[in-house]
């Protein structure tokens, strides 16, 4: 029997749905729900984490993220302008920095700032304690990525914008500050927001610096609670709290990208 093209497409589509439902049913039937809920969804364990999970752990995670982001953004902007400089040594230096820090694991940089530098200069201290070390340790790496993002943003601003500004008598610096950079930042807000999301997750590395109960962040807090209660529920709680930060940010990125798409 010869089937029409439309009929064949329908059969394939229905089969697709059926396979999906079947897989879900098999997983649900095979799972040991009692053990799963005992391990990952223990209400008493979850409740015991609050309010510290939010007032201390989530708060510190956000603080580390913001500190590293502001430091990285500032340094990244400087690096981006250096990469676009007409002075060759500046371009070299910025390129070398970016290639170096994009190539190193964030954890290695964090070790270097947290332990390497203090060992080399025992008589000096990084200001701000663990907060200072995290700002620099995570910010150095973030700056390398953000520099490339910002550079691309600046280059995406049409050349005519700078020319028009210069024609009106603005100096190069004035034209960059008043005309080019504001437009470049509009272009790079979505990728920079992605950078915040990545940084949020990278703050989980901070525990290697040896945090105190006051400076603890989400992942270490969950790990500690897992140890004392001998139950993995805290990991689920910490995971949900990360999503509380990152999901709204992804929504922001999506909304901004939709808006940018409309303006074009």
């Amino acid at each position, binding site marked *: 029997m010869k089937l029409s093209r439309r009929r064949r497409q329908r059969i394939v589509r229905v089969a697709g749905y059926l396979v999906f439902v079947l897989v879900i049913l098999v997983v649900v039937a095979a799972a040991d729900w009692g053990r799963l809920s005992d391990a990952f969804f223990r209400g008493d364990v979850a409740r015991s984490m609050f309010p510290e999970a939010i007032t201390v752990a989530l708060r510190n995670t956000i603080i580390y993220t913001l500190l590293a982001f502001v430091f990285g953004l500032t340094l990244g902007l400087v690096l981006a302008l250096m990469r676009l400089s007409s002075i060759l040594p500046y371009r070299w230096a910025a390129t070398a920095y970016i290639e170096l820090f994009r190539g190193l694991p964030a954890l290695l940089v964090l070790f270097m700032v947290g332990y390497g530098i203090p060992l080399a200069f025992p008589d000096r201290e990084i200001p701000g304690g663990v907060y200072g070390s995290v700002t620099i340790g995570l910010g150095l790496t973030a700056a390398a990525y953000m520099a490339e993002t910002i550079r691309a943003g600046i280059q995406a601003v049409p050349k005519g914008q700078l*020319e028009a500004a210069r024609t009106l008598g603005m100096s190069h610096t004035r034209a960059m500050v008043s*005309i080019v950079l504001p437009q470049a930042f509009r272009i790079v807000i979505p990728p920079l927001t992605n950078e915040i999301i990545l940084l949020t997750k990278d703050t989980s590395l901070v525990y290697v610096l040896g945090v105190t109960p006051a400076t603890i962040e989400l992942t270490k807090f969950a790990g500690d609670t897992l140890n004392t209660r001998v139950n993995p529920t805290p990991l689920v709680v910490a995971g949900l709290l990360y999503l509380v930060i990152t999901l709204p940010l992804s929504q922001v990125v999506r909304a901004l990208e939709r808006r940018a798409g409309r303006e074009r």
Partner: protein
Amino acid sequence: MSTIEITGLHKSFGKLEVLRGIDLRVEPGEVVCVIGPSGSGKSTLLRCVNLLEEPTSGSIRVAGVEVTDPDTDIDAVRRGIGMVFQQFNLFGHLTVRENVTIAQRRVLKRGRAEADRVAAENLSRVGLTDKAASYPAQLSGGQQQRVAIARALAMDPKLMLFDEPTSALDPELVGEVLAVMRGLAAEGMTMLVVTHEMAFAREVASRVVFMDAGAIVEQGPPAEVFGKPREARTREFLHRVLEPTHVSETEIGAHLTD
């Protein structure tokens, strides 16, 4: 003193020689239209006047100031020269009013009230008073170009440069921009205009300059250049521009097989 005095201007991009020795004067109050085929160097000539392009050699004096002199404060010179671009180049992140005030505020250091007053004056001059709060993306091409003209005029320039101001416009929007330019010319503004609008050049220009292959081929009053061009290259160009439907196949070297 001439507003513009160009002598022996050469400009090369790498091995490509775009301007091959240009001599040109523009007197105060003159409207000089530069016409010629694309690639003839018209735009480059215009962009050399305010040093958007650095001349390879030669001299350019604007109101007596040598712009190619490394000691000249080029930002100060540019303040006195308005420029209008083919692509408008309005600042997309600023409203129409802010487009017209930002250089007044940042460069001329005018106060907000004065800058707003000058902006309103110039927006009314180009017929766009009601668009002050709009963003460039909300305007038609013709409106954007008129804002660009207002933005330049707000700096009280002594000279206006127009780089093919209507070439990026839909045909029905060309007229509104030309009307503004005609008004400016009537007020006595000194203008150097690169254009493909022959009717405008014929009507408004005090002098027409025909360029080809990086050199000025001929120049004179529009009645002469358009009415009885001396050079064969001028005649050929005008024929192709003014009567495009009469360009013959043999003229362009086409060999139709049947």
